């Protein structure tokens, strides 16, 4: 749904001279919990401003302080958001070369049966699949110097390295590759192969010590994998395209500070501290309380800041950095979960080992969201399929409470899979709401204090232009 406001013919030039009535833009004050500053937001366009608390009334009443300049630029901001929310073409694929995994994590969004007995793509099929994807992207992405991305994901991709590694070599000119792995099979040879080909590598670790990691991430027989991850982190210590995912649950909520210390000490440049997605029932058994999660995550963020100030080296928490970006430069965001519609089925899609196509990996266990098969139906058909449309049609402008929420385009109300499975419908919120309220408020406080650069990677704004500045 495009939300552009057109001033009808015959309206007086004064239409829109007030905020919050008639053709005037909505400008909503938001208490960000800062002693000196409040925010005033234009929710539809993701517009923000910070106003000294004692000048809040003036900022809303005196058109020269804010309203006039915003009104002038609003169509441009709206067009930018419309393009970001509805105008993108896929340029990445989350590729499961196997549906099997050698671990049995409590919360995994891939059903246990699939992880035990699922398909394994053959080397030939994988090459054929990459050829089809190359062909598709050549038309869908048009003229661009940007390469489409293939991320080998899973289940556990390295269980099928015999198929994946030749694929990376055969298509290294065509795609930018990444891999997300539990690290148990990441031996020295695999590290050498991947790092010499500049493949970005994501590892998963849930705790600062084995006792914590073992609560949620172990082999099927209960064996610990914690030490294997630490070994890989040591070997990859200077690799700039390394990252770590921590899934935050009741099992590690109180251990995030030592975990952040460990990741920083091991020179990990970036991590995700992800709230557990509650799409499948197993995940809900370790779901933290919304507010407790917010408090723990904010403490962990502030810990990364202390470590940076002390050492000069950053550990970027990418899911938080993305919220800062969503505020400062909406089109520069890297993660596409916290925008609505989300990136699933429009910025990227997922391929299962059978070639089945899903809007996102999160849907791989949900047959109803299968949009077709890469080999039989083709990609363009899948993107237009009813299951994909269900996901790409989920828009925070259309359901409560998100449609009146001032921060809806910083949060995006993730995740459709979770909303559908846990809360019973697409047009509901996901598992966490307070978390995003608190993270966005924290982000505004950080901006108010001029600390945003400390939480973002160097050069985050290279390639951006300043559209607006007050």
């Amino acid at each position, binding site marked *: 749904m495009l939300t552009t406001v057109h001033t009808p013919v015959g309206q007086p030039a004064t239409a829109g001279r007030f905020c919050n009535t008639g053709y005037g833009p909505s400008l909503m004050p938001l208490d960000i919990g800062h002693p000196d500053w409040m925010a005033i937001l234009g929710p539809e366009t993701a517009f923000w*401003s*910070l*106003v*000294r608390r004692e*000048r809040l009334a003036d*900022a809303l009443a005196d058109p020269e*302080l*804010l309203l006039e300049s915003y009104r002038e630029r609003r169509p441009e901001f709206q067009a*930018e958001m419309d393009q970001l929310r509805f105008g993108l073409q*896929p340029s*990445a694929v*989350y590729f499961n070369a196997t549906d099997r995994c050698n671990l049995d994590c409590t919360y995994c*969004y891939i059903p246990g049966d699939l992880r035990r007995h699922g398909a394994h793509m053959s080397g030939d099929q994988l090459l054929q699949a990459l050829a089809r994807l190359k062909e598709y992207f050549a038309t869908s992405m048009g003229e661009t110097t940007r390469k489409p*991305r293939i*991320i080998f*994901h899973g289940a556990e991709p390295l269980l099928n390295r015999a198929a994946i590694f030749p694929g990376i070599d055969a298509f290294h000119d065509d795609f930018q590759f990444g891999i997300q792995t539990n690290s148990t099979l990441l031996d020295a040879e695999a590290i050498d192969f991947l*790092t010499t080909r*500049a493949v*970005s590598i*994501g590892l998963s670790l849930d705790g600062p010590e084995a006792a914590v990691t073992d609560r949620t991430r172990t082999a099927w027989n209960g064996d610990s994998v914690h030490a294997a991850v630490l070994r890989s982190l040591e070997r990859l210590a*200077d*690799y*700039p*395209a390394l*990252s770590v*995912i921590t899934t935050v649950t009741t099992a590690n909520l109180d251990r995030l500070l030592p975990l952040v210390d460990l990741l920083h000490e091991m*020179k990990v440049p*970036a*991590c995700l501290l*992800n709230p557990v*997605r509650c799409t499948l029932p197993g995940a809900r058994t370790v779901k933290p309380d919304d507010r407790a999660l917010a408090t723990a995550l904010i403490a962990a963020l502030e810990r990364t800041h202390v470590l*940076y100030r002390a*050492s*000069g080296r950053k550990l*970027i928490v*990418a899911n938080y950095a*993305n919220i800062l970006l969503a505020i*400062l*430069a*909406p*089109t*520069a*965001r*890297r*993660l596409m979960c916290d925008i609505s519609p989300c*990136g*699933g089925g429009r910025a*990227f899609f997922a391929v299962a080992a059978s070639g089945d196509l899903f809007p996102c990996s*999160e849907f791989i266990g949900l047959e109803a969201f299968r949009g077709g098969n890469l080999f039989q139906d083709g990609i363009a058909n899948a993107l237009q399929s009813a299951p994909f449309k269900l996901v790409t049609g989920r828009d925070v402008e259309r359901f409560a409470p998100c449609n009146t929420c001032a921060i809806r385009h910083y949060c995006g109300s*993730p995740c459709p899979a979770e909303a559908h499975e846990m809360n019973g419908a697409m047009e509901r919120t996901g598992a966490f709401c307070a978390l995003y309220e608190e993270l966005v408020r924290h982000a505004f406080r950080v901006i108010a204090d*001029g600390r945003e650069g*400390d939480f973002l990677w160097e050069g985050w704004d290279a*390639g*951006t*232009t*300043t*559209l*607006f*500045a*007050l």
Partner: protein
Amino acid sequence: MQPELKKPEESKKVDTSKPVRAVRKSCTADGVGLSHYILMDRKAK
């Protein structure tokens, strides 16, 4: 090798005399990350 660490710069000075502050930057949208994978766009060497 890890480059020499430089001391972090002072956080940006905020102009507290202004009643209203706002910034919006823009670029071509090309984010494709999801919560189960980080895309930091940091080029491996």
